[in-house]
């Protein structure tokens, strides 16, 4: 028996370098990944179905109603927090690769450097606004250097909003309209620079509008939120039709199908139905009387919304009606009494594998402009029309609905906007917190459903650790922050008045 050994010193350090792994990611691939990851994780059965859509009271659960009653899974919360920051890391990488001398030349093959940076800043702003609207103060300015600063401090929401407004202004300004944004991989706009500029400005309107209700006097570079919005309106560069909508469209082939299709047909879950509170609103009916004396009547009483049969599927068993949503917030046992056959599922259109998840659309811009102009009736009706056209309502039905709909006022604009924001998980709830509308939302302690025999079910938010008389004002931070970033978490929790569902975020008048 013998032992033979060889040694080698030639090109030794290259041995561990895989020729198949790219060292510098092409930026367009990072962009595609971000665009998909965000929708995969925000409009799916977890962050959408067991979180955002529930708070919106537009889609809710018909089997396990624990999250409907506000006992959210910490793992889902942790995963979302994580996903936001990891997708932003990709966006930061796009910015870095387009800024550093060593790489910017190479990346300019995929579109003008400044355009790519602008697009990354727009998406980062979209994501971070979402994050801060849901949680309040969050890490932002210190969040991007995990190597040197693994424990970032939490920024005040006021500073975050100031940065968002600045970023969107800068992004819009740096776009070169004569060059593509990305030569490939841009699933939102196919690299169209003008559309990205419109997106940047429209998003800026969304950011500023959030502040008008309770923080309208705060100035950013000398301008109040309403002045910022008016400036955008005057520029004329914002979404002008549904053709400008920022939509991520999935594909029919595996593995690129839409998240709801994945939930229903690949995971084979039947856990979600259209929420009855939403169905009742669209049917033009009143929800059950609140039982607390609060007026929760439907502002569009008697008016059937033609979007209902497009968004909701007819029930398999029409015992409660052809279109009947699952009442919100019942106990598991009661929701099973209704069950998946007697409640309307999301329609085939919503469950299609090539569904398009919406980042932002023209209808919202119309409602924002209407509100900025003092609840202008013309823009309000444009918004209704835009939403109906997007979902495929035929022109005659749109015309007759618009002729009959009550005129614009704070409640009507907010309620129509709530309907138009359907599918954009969390946005309707965020706007509800800002405006207090629609008043048809069922609050903890109120009647959510009256059974045929006359007895009522009260929506008990028994999953909440804190006593609620209205919907949560925010979501609690990821529990991982409590152990992995303890000092900063504790400071932030104290500053916002406690890490609970009750603490209002800054733009709602909180700390």
């Amino acid at each position: 028996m013998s032992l033979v050994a060889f040694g080698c010193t030639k090109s030794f350090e290259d041995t561990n370098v895989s020729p198949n792994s790219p060292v510098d990611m092409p930026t367009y691939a990072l962009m595609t990944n971000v665009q998909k990851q965000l929708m995969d994780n925000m409009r799916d059965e977890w962050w959408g179905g067991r979180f955002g859509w529930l708070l919106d009271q537009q889609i809710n659960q018909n089997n396990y109603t624990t999250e409907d009653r506000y006992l959210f899974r910490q793992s889902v919360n942790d995963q979302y927090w994580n996903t936001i920051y990891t997708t932003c890391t990709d966006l930061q990488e796009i910015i870095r690769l387009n800024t550093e001398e060593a790489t910017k030349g190479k990346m300019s093959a995929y579109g003008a450097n400044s355009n790519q940076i602008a697009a990354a800043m727009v998406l980062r702003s979209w994501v971070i606004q979402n994050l801060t609207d849901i949680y309040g103060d969050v890490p932002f300015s210190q969040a991007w250097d995990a190597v040197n600063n693994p424990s970032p401090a939490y920024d005040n929401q006021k500073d975050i909003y100031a940065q968002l407004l600045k970023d969107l202004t800068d992004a819009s300004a740096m776009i070169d309209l004569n060059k593509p944004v990305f030569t490939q991989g841009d699933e939102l706009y196919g690299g169209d620079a003008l559309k990205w500029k419109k997106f940047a400005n429209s998003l800026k309107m969304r950011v500023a509008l959030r502040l008008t209700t309770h923080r309208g006097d705060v100035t950013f570079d000398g301008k109040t939120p309403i002045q910022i919005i008016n400036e955008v309106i005057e520029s004329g560069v914002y979404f002008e039709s549904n053709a400008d909508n920022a939509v991520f469209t999935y594909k029919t082939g595996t593995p690129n199908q839409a998240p709801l299709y994945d939930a229903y047909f690949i995971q084979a879950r039947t856990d979600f139905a259209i929420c009855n509170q939403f169905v009742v609103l669209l049917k033009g009916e009143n929800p059950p009387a609140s039982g607390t004396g609060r007026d929760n009547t439907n502002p569009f009483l008697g008016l059937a919304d033609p979007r209902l049969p497009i968004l909701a599927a007819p029930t398999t068993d029409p015992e409660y009606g052809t279109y009947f949503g699952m009442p919100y917030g019942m106990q598991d046992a009661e929701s099973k009494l209704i069950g998946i056959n007697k409640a309307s599922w999301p329609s085939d259109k919503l469950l299609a594998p090539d569904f398009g998840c919406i980042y932002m659309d023209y209808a919202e811009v119309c409602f924002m402009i209407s509100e900025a102009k003092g609840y202008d009736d013309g823009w309000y009706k444009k918004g209704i029309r835009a939403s109906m056209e997007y979902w495929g309502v035929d022109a005659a039905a749109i015309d007759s609905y618009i002729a009959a709909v009550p005129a614009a006022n704070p409640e009507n604009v907010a309620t129509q906007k709530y309907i138009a924001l359907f599918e954009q998980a969390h946005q309707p709830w965020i706007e509800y917190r800002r405006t207090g509308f629609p008043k048809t939302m069922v609050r903890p302690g109120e009647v959510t459903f009256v059974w045929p025999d006359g007895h009522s079910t009260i929506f008990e938010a028994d999953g909440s650790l804190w006593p609620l008389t209205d919907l949560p004002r925010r979501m609690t931070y990821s529990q991982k922050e409590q152990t992995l970033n303890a000092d900063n978490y504790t400071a932030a929790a104290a500053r916002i008045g406690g890490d609970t569902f009750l603490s209002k975020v800054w733009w709602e008048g909180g700390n």
Partner: protein
Amino acid sequence: MLNLVPIKMKDFVWNMSINYSHNENKVVSLAKGVSNLELGVAPFNATVNAMVGKSYGTIFGTDFIKDANGNIIVGTNGRYLATTTVKPIGNVMPKYNMGINNSFSYKGIDFSFLIDVQHGGQLFSTTYMWGMYSGILKESAATNELGNNIRDAVVKNEDGTYASTSGGVLLEGYYGKVNTDGTVQYLNADGTNSDVPVKNTTRIGGQRYCWDVYGRAQKQNIFSSDYIKLREIRIGYTIPSKYTGMIKNIRISAFGRNLAIWGQDLKHIDPENTTSSGNIQGIEGGALPSLRTFGLNLTFEF
């Protein structure tokens, strides 16, 4: 490790071997700027951590709300509360592990049994959490202090007191709530503030009690991972060589492993059947039940 020979006679020997280990440790430092490393994350509600300043393997989860004297605080609805932040609620490291092996031989017969002991660590039981939530474990159909099944309806008399036929659970604790500054405020049963502790008299339904095992303080799912196990029994016989001719040392033996367990805190599980993968310990749930094994051996030489 201790080896004893309590009895040694011409034909009979009794050997005893005892192994004992004890570990004390503290996490001194991690990477720069990092004060906690999450070793493992349970699918629900708990994590196992290496936190600077604490013993390795600290389990974090929500805890009960307690007053300054350590008494549990419940809401005016009679339900447990939970801390907003996660707290150290247990540690996976046992105080000691011990093994005791006794072996006997008498003429050609040998017999041994091994007992394993673990004491002092904790685990987080997902089985208990979901088993209670779903009403599968027998604790979810326990008998309450009135002698009724907790699943029976909670019944009030006309004067507001509870009927003797009431089901449900009456938790031990005082009414209270947590102020935004973290201090505990005692309450009366009607929700008004109280300066003194007021004992909980509000019953909660059995189903509500079980759901709160998932929805309230996760300390409820921490159990000790102590056990005493009859790890192995062996019995064998070596046939004397005068009967076997050319083939020498024919020995037949039978063994059984994992034969019995005593002393568990949570009787439904085997505390050794936790998620144990490298650094992660102490998360119990979803494991296949542990197995008893039996076997026969035949050895010979030629």
